[in-house]
């Protein structure tokens, strides 16, 4: 403190300074203790975290350092707090009963006296105060006080020590297994089995088709069914997933040009078949590849047609497989087919024809009469204009429509194939003649060359510049090949074979597309079916479900016998099937018919079969049976107990164990299924009914054991 009067108050000042030090130390201790409480809490927390493995040793050390810093900071803060010397002097005065002598002296030392009298008073007062200095004992003025927070500090230190010794559980120990969420069974096992079966069928269709997107969606559908089986998915999630898959399927929907193409080829084959003469018909019958190819095209199966064409290409490789005459006939057939293949839109074509007829009629009239009325003139002008428009539109439509372009390509390839076949036939004839006449190949070379050039020119003229170039290239190549062929003889592939092979490839690619589209459609329908299955299917009753599942499994196992076995036992199976059918339909009737087998057996049969086929859980949805009690008169016609032979149920069971899915049954099934599918497509069958129909057909579907 500043001494303005230059009076000697040093002893008082020293006293105050010493007291200040003492008080600072005490305050530092007090603050440090308080800070240590917080630091101890922090260290305890960090210790627990360290021991339970939440933090590593380095972090623990860091936090311990922070705790130490907190204590030191507290101590420094306590020691650094401002102290008022007057207040300290007052503290001494109070503790020693000095009646503010020291504090007043300090205060007066800093004060300018207003008068001599006051100065005298200040001096007297200072003297008085100085006399008291030697009486002062600082221990009395600021006795040592135990820090107030020492008790909590000791408590926390003890707790910390205990924690240090205790080994708490490390949090990194293996966690308990996650709770398994089991949802309600949303589809019974029988339905699941059927859905899987259908998925397998779709997959089979896609087996040799490269469509990863659809395959992926099918896999996802399979996974979904697996989840349903494991009860890992709720009904809502299931439906959401179905929607998601449907959207995905819609997104990846391919172009439908393959279907259009198949349709147009089908039309072409139908037209061709109408125009066939006897010789051609005979040729088709003789050549199974051609026959099957046409049949495949007629049924819209381009993939199968492609296979057949490939087979034909192989056949054409070897000239010995086909006589030149036959080859020539085949070439003509192909040419005819190429003519039938018309890429134009049939409606536009019809329209153009109509206009063309009108123009033709009017022109004939003009020729005949040498003159036309004004009305006819206008009609002729309009018809000519309409004809031109229709032709333009036809060209545009063909160029724009993908299927049109593809059909045109097929048409061109067929024409090429036909030409190549003709060439091949001619060449074969020449070869045969040379072989017979002993001639050798120079003329052939030049002749072929000339032919090739001509072909190139034809290509240019017919198909425009680009196509002409292609034609040139192709022809050039084939010309070279033919040269080689001419040199090397039969060892190389023939041109016709190559062309056929190329056409087969083209058709095959379209066939793949077609199959892929079919699979997509199937997959989409399957999604609908799955949704419908969820709506209609049984859920909740696990016992019934397992029973039905077992029944279904048993049924599938029994129906899925090998073909060979089925073939061997075919006749017997069919017979037994009939018998069992009659038993199912009407027990009484069967009793009358099969009286020999006895009433017992017929009763058993009807009961057992009705249990499974007529009164099962799934058939409840079909409604209750009619109540006919009021009009019906029960007649009990007991049959005679037979002594030999098996009961009906035994016969049916035996037949099913041996398998009754014969080829014939397969065919029948296939026919019926096709018809049903067609009807369902054409008619607006409600989804619920559609579900039952499909389910029925799935259930009666012939199966083969893998």
């Amino acid at each position, binding site marked *: 403190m500043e001494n303005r009067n230059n009076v000697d108050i040093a002893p008082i000042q020293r006293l105050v300074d010493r007291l200040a030090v003492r008080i600072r130390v005490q305050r530092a201790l007090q603050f440090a203790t308080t800070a240590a409480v917080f630091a101890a809490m922090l260290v305890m927390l960090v210790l627990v975290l360290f021991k339970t493995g939440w933090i590593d040793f380095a972090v623990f050390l860091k936090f311990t350092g922070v705790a130490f810093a907190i204590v030191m900071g507290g101590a420094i803060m306590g020691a650094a707090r401002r102290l008022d010397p*007057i207040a300290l002097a007052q503290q001494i005065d109070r503790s020693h009963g000095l*009646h503010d002598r020291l504090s*007043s002296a300090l205060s007066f030392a800093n004060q300018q006296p207003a008068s001599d009298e006051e100065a005298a008073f200040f001096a007297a007062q200072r003297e008085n105060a100085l006399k008291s200095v030697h009486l002062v004992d600082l221990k009395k003025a600021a006795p040592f006080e135990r820090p107030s927070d020492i008790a909590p500090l000791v408590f926390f230190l003890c707790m910390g020590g205990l924690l240090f010794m205790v080994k708490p559980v490390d949090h990194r120990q293996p966690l308990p297994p996650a709770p398994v969420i089991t949802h309600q069974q949303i589809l019974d096992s029988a339905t699941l089995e059927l859905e899987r079966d259908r998925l397998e069928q779709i997959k089979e269709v896609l087996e040799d088709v490269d469509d990863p997107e659809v395959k992926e969606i099918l896999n996802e559908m399979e996974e979904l069914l697996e989840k349903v089986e494991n009860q890992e998915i709720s009904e809502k999630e299931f439906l959401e997933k179905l929607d998601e898959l449907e959207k995905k399927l819609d997104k990846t929907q391919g172009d439908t040009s393959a279907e259009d193409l198949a349709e147009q080829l089908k039309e072409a084959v139908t037209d061709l078949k109408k125009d066939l003469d006897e010789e051609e018909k005979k040729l088709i019958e003789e050549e199974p590849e051609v026959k099957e190819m046409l049949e495949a095209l007629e049924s819209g199966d381009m993939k199968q047609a492609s296979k057949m064409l490939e087979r034909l290409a192989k056949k054409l490789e070897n000239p010995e497989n086909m006589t030149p005459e036959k080859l020539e006939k085949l070439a003509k057939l192909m040419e005819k087919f190429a003519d039938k293949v018309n890429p134009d839109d049939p409606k536009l074509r019809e329209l153009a024809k109509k206009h063309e007829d009108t123009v033709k009629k009017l022109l004939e009239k003009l020729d005949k009469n040498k003159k036309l009325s004004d009305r006819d003139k206008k009609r002729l002008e309009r018809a000519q204009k309409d004809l031109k428009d229709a032709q333009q539109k036809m060209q545009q439509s063909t160029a724009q429509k993908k299927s049109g372009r593809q059909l045109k390509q097929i048409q061109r390839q067929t024409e090429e194939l036909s030409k190549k076949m003709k060439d091949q036939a001619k060449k074969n004839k020449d070869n045969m003649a040379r072989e017979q006449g002993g001639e050798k190949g120079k003329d052939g070379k030049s002749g072929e060359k000339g032919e090739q050039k001509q072909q190139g020119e034809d290509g240019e003229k017919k198909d425009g510049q680009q196509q002409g170039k292609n034609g040139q290239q192709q022809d050039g190549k084939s010309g070279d090949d033919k040269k080689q062929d001419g040199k090397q003889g039969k060892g190389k592939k023939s041109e016709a074979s190559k062309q056929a092979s190329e056409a087969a490839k083209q058709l095959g690619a379209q066939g793949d597309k077609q199959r892929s589209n079919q699979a997509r459609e199937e997959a989409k329908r399957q999604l609908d079916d799955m949704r419908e299955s969820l709506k209609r299917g049984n859920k909740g009753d696990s016992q019934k479900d397992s029973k039905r599942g077992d029944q279904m499994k048993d049924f599938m196992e029994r129906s899925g016998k090998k073909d060979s076995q089925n073939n061997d036992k075919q006749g017997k199976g069919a017979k037994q099937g009939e018998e069992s059918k009659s038993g199912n339909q009407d027990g009484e009737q069967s009793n009358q018919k099969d009286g020999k087998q006895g009433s017992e057996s017929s009763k058993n049969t009807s009961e057992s079969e009705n249990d499974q086929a007529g009164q099962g859980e799934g058939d409840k949805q079909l409604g209750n049976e009619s109540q006919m009690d009021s009009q019906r008169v029960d007649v009990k016609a007991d049959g005679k107990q037979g002594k030999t032979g098996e009961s009906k149920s035994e016969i049916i069971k035996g037949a099913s164990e041996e398998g009754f899915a014969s080829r014939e049954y397969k065919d029948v099934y296939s026919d019926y299924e096709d018809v049903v599918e067609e009807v369902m497509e054409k008619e607006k069958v409600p989804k619920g009914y559609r579900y039952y129909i499909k389910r029925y057909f799935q259930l009666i579907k012939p199966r083969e054991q893998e």
Partner: protein
Amino acid sequence: MSIQEKLETYQRDCGRIREEVGKMIVGQRDVIDGVIVCILAGGNVLLEGVPGLGKTMLVRSLATALGLDFSRIQFTPDLMPTDILGTTMLVESEDGKRHFTFEKGPIFANMILADEINRATPKTQSAMLEAMQEKSVTIGKQTYQLEQPFFVLATQNPLEQEGTYPLPEAQLDRFLYKLFMKMPSLEEMHTIMDRTTSSDTPELERVITKEKLLEIRAFARAIPVAPHIQDYALRIMYGSHPEHELATGQTKQYVRFGASPRGAQTILLTSKIRALMDGRDNVSTEDIRKSAVPALRHRVILNFEGEAEGIQTEDIIESIIERTPEQKK
């Protein structure tokens, strides 16, 4: 004479006054000290106590010990101001001429005992105001200075409040201290009985002259007060103001008006006298604390709640003292 010597002398004189009064008044040490403090400070005292506790005796004893003129005025409702101050009378001289002469009233004395001052009408009470504050009396156009030292010791009887006129605040403020005379203890009563009922009546002596008294008063006023001590006194004074930040909870609840600055002056002045009486040349916080209660108790005005609950102003002032730290924060 040095300050220290003067201090010692005056302390001794004060002690002698106390001893001399103590011959007549048994006990009542605080009241005697308070009255001496007020006389030395040049102020007036309001003494409250039931009759028979020796109020008149105290003033008479003091007047004797100090060698001062003494007047006793018994205040009654019919007492007129002229009865106190004096009046102008028509007097016939020896030569037969008649002239007006001012006949001084009992106020013209060094020490006045205004007994039961609250029984007089406000008009009469106000006649005392000028004399108490200005130490002068104005009659007509003539002002008469009162002889120094002038000291009024007014008494109030807390009983029989009917027909009394409570002193207005302005008049109360003119009293330095308000002191209560308490009932003596049994031991003190024995001594009082012995002294007053026997033939040996103690005789009082004059121990100090008027001049000395005035000298002591001047010396006491010169005693310096350290700023932090003065600050303490002011903080106590502000503590009695309900609207001030230093006000205590009790002050805020029960006080209507706090002490006036004259209250703080009184505390400091009387603290100086107390320091002198204690032989010190500095005022301490203890002096302030001792002076605060008698100096402020009649200056703090309670509100309705305080009056209704019978709160004593002493309690409020003591709570202020208790809650006011000696060191400024």
